[in-house]
Every structure is written in structure tokens, then in C-alpha cells.
């Protein structure tokens, strides 16, 4: 085994995903402890140019038609064979639609330990955030090559970017035949009636809103504030708002001037889409809700007790 820290670079439709840069930043922290190098692994077809701004010591690149787009099968085979050949100290993946499909399968295939939902690496300690952001778990690297999936929040993407292109070395992909998963097509989301990523004022609702009827109250508030209603995942899963209004991991990332979070607990999957908001005001009954850790202002209150006086006072002001 060597002391190097490997990272699986994630990219979609010709663009490196932000989590890749975040992982590079984390890997550099870990490499300081192990004394190894940071090595990015890039899989694709005609995708070598994506390596140009990766702040790593080296990039290992393989070009293969079966890797042109992400499919779990082809990625798993390629990464597994690379690990067997190079035996890095640790291998970082995004805890994402790409990374999570690869890391666990490799853990089972090669009998390697896996640490998931890691948010920060400090002095060789890997800290994971679980239970919707309410619990932290600390781990250390195991004896064998340790697989890690990372969530955003601990590092800025810029920390993993560099203006000096790294050295890119090519490697051969293993035999990629008998693939059981194939991409048929990408379906690009239909544009919604509004683009919430461009709105300055967002009124965000979560599970705490309880019933569909209550969305009207948020709409009323949004009208007074000249804002738009958006939500966390459960609201969209219930079919109460369209996907175009969803903030977070599978939804959109937003940076409004004001993000008013009503009944949103602040699970990491949601926070990654709104943490960069200029001001966050959170209303939640649960004093331990993680949303209060990132909000500028917090109100520990039942939204339903607050909404009437709030609308009444706004009515008075606006007439």
C-alpha cells in the first residue's frame, strides 16, 4: 500500500461537479497526515481537458467509449481494478448519485472498509454528519485502503481548483464488456414558471408546513415580500410543489438575499443547496434543528402561531 489519497472526479455533461473540488480540498488535508500525494481519477471519453483546473499532484485519466457517460457498472469495474493495482491509502467519492453508486459496491467487491457522509477531515480524523445533521461521528482510516463518501459543507470548491494544470497520466481501463447498466438518454428538466436560482427573496417551506393547504400561507407571505415560494424535498415528493421549486441535492442551488426557511430542519441534503444565501432566517419548533447552525436569525416557534400576526402586521404596513 502507498500513502496516496485518490479521488473519483465526478462530471456530467462536460462539466466537473462541484463536489469533486470539495473532495480535492479534503484529500489535501488527509494527505498532509499520511504524507502521500493527492491523485485525481478521471474517467471519460474525450474528457481529458476536464483535468485542467484540478488542484492535485497528478491526474490518472482513462479514455473509453463505455465511460463516455456515467454508468455504475463501468465505473465500478474501472475504479476497482485501479484500487487493486495501486492500493492507495484512501479513496474519496462524492456521497452523490455518482459516487454513492460506486463506493459501496467496491467496498463489498474488494472487502474494503467504507466511511460515508464525511464532511470534514482534520488531523487524520474523518467526521461524518448523520441523522439529518443532528449527529456527528468521528472515524479514522482503517488498515486497508479506506473508501470514503463525502458531503459538501466543510470546504469551498475554490480550495480544490488551481490555475496550473496538473500532470495527466493515462491508464488503461479494464475489459468493459458485459455491462448490465446502460444510459439511454438524459432528460433535461422543464423550466418552471420561475427560476428560483435567480430570485432575491425566497420563502422556503419544509415538512413543518404539515398540509398542502398551508402552502397558501407561504404564498401570501411571499407576495408581501416580493419573493417566491420554494421547498425542501418532502414537499415536492408529496406533489405539493413542482420539482422546479426544489432546493438541495437533487434540486437547485440558490443564493438569494433572503432565505426564509419555514419548518425546514436543515438536513445536509437541503443545506447544500442554500448555505450560500446572503441571509438565512429560520423558523422551527425544534431547538436542535440543524438549520439554526447556519441561519443568521432563528425563531424557535411554531410557524402556525407566527404566520397570522406576521401577515396582519404586513397588511398594516402595505395597506
Amino acid at each position, binding site marked *: 500500500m502507498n500513502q496516496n489519497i485518490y479521488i473519483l472526479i465526478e462530471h456530467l455533461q462536460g462539466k466537473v461537479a462541484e463536489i469533486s473540488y470539495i473532495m480535492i480540498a479534503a484529500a489535501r488535508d488527509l494527505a498532509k497526515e499520511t504524507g502521500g500525494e493527492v491523485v485525481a481519477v478521471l474517467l471519460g471519453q474525450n474528457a481529458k481537458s476536464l483535468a485542467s483546473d484540478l488542484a492535485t499532484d497528478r491526474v490518472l485519466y482513462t479514455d473509453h467509449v463505455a465511460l463516455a457517460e456515467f454508468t455504475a457498472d463501468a465505473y465500478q469495474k474501472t475504479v476497482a481494478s485501479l484500487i487493486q493495482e495501486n492500493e492507495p491509502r484512501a479513496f474519496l467519492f462524492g456521497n452523490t448519485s455518482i459516487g454513492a453508486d460506486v463506493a459501496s*459496491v467496491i467496498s463489498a467487491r474488494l472487502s474494503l472498509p467504507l466511511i460515508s457522509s464525511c464532511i470534514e477531515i482534520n488531523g487524520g480524523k474523518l467526521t461524518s454528519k448523520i441523522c439529518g445533521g443532528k449527529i456527528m461521528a468521528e472515524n479514522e482510516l482503517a488498515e486497508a485502503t479506506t473508501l470514503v463518501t463525502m458531503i459538501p459543507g466543510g470546504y469551498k470548491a475554490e480550495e480544490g481548483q488551481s490555475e496550473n494544470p496538473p500532470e495527466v497520466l493515462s491508464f488503461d481501463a479494464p475489459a468493459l464488456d458485459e455491462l448490465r447498466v446502460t444510459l439511454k438518454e438524459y432528460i433535461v428538466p422543464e423550466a418552471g414558471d420561475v427560476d428560483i436560482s435567480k430570485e432575491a427573496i425566497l420563502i422556503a417551506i419544509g415538512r413543518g408546513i404539515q398540509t398542502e393547504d398551508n402552502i397558501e400561507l407561504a404564498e401570501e407571505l411571499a407576495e408581501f415580500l416580493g419573493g417566491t415560494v420554494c421547498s425542501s424535498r418532502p414537499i415536492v415528493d408529496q406533489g405539493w410543489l413542482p420539482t422546479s421549486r426544489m432546493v438541495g441535492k437533487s434540486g437547485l442551488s440558490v443564493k438569494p438575499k433572503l432565505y426564509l426557511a419555514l419548518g425546514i430542519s436543515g438536513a445536509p441534503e437541503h443545506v447544500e443547496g442554500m448555505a450560500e444565501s446572503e441571509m438565512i432566517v429560520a423558523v422551527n419548533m425544534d431547538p436542535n434543528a440543524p438549520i439554526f447552525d447556519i441561519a443568521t436569525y432563528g425563531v424557535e416557534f411554531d410557524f402556525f402561531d407566527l404566520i397570522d400576526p406576521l401577515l396582519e402586521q404586513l397588511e398594516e404596513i402595505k395597506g
Partner: protein
Amino acid sequence: MTNIVTLVKMVPDLVEELEINDDGTDLDRDWLRLIINEFDNHAIEQAILLKERDGGEITVIAPEAEGVEDMLFTTAAKGADRMIKLTGDLEEGVNNHALARAFAERAKSFQPDLILTGVQANDDLDGPVGPLVAEYLGMPYVGYISKVTLEEGIAIVQKEYPGGLIGEMEVRLPAVLGIQAGEEPPRYVAISKVRQMMKTVEIDEQEIPELDLGGGIAPSRMYLPEAAERAEMIEGDEDEIATKLIAIFKEVGAL
């Protein structure tokens, strides 16, 4: 006939206050209230939608935990055909590698065409269960799924990527799918129907003789997050808070 196995686990209810045990290495499980993993609930809904559309049989497998029997009866009331509770050294919680081995062992005997489970659970520490089960059974895995259609020998699935992008994929069966959301929100069933199931349906208990924890990790420390900065809390009665909020809205130019 499509043979569908759904893998379900109970997880901490995050509405409740969570506490850490005396060793500082795990959740304090004595007072922990458990609920069905919400993503597993979506997987159950997806399984039932497939059965309603194409026919088939649904087997639900879940490890023993507080509340698991109620959950299994509820699933039966929704339309699942066979309920299995895994017993053994499971009550204190077990890592996902061990659980996945147990799931794989039981699921195998039903020769499933399709295994559905939640894409993740809030207490996962060593990755989600689904891809581990897939690999132990030598099946392909695709996660973050929000739509499944079955055709001869394959599943056509919609896989979610950031920003609302969807990858439509073809997966050869048998396969394991990690469900992010079913095509419809999980249905509700009347309590009376669940009660009826309690009287008529039997939960099959199957013991896991030995748990293999390999590949999972045991955290050296678990703790409640201490935020470096916390929100400035606005205090007062509802009228005072409303007034203060309006002042903030003015300050950022929202009024």
C-alpha cells in the same frame, strides 16, 4: 410473474431529541423512537405501483426493531404479500455491511427479479444498504431512482442528478434499485385495515445466526454538533417576533 423483494429498516425519528450513549460512541438506543426509513417507504410504494401495473408478488424483509411489526402490518395493508422479520443480535443496531449480508441471504431464497430499497437512511455510517446487497448477490445496482418501468428482462429507470437532470437507464434484471422517491407519494392506509392484517396475516420470523460486521466501521466518537456560530435567536411573543422579523425584512430590502 414479477417477484419483488423490498428491504426496509427502521431509523431514528429525527423529530425527537437524540442522545449519545455513555461511551460516546453510538446513539443512546434506550429512548430512541424509531420510524420507517422514509426512502424505504418510497421503495414500498414503488413496489406496490409495479404490482398494480404488471402483477407480481412483493416480499418485505426488515430487521427486528421497535415498531417493526406495525410497519410490516401496514405494508401488508398496502398490498405486500409476504412479511419477514429478521431476528438475532439486531436490537442494538448493526452496521449496514452486516445487515446487507443478512438481507442478501434471505432475499436470495425468493429468486427476486427486482429488489427495491431506499437510496439511503439517516443513520447510515458505512454507505447505504442497497449497493452492498447488490454486490453480495452479484446483481447490478442503480441508486437515486424516482421512476421504474419493467419490460422483458430489463428495468427502465430514471436516475436523479443535481439540478433536476435525469438519466434514463436500462438495467438488466435481476437488479437492486435504490429508490429516492416513488412515482407517487407513499399511500396512507386506514388503521382499521392495518388491524385487520394483524388478525389475518402472519409475520415470518427468520433468525440470523451470525452477523458479519466486516467492511462496516465503528466510530471512535459520536457527538452532537457544536456549531461554531449559531443563529441569533429572536425572542418574544408572536407579535413581538413578527415585528422584529419585519424589521429584518426591511433591512434586506424585502419591504
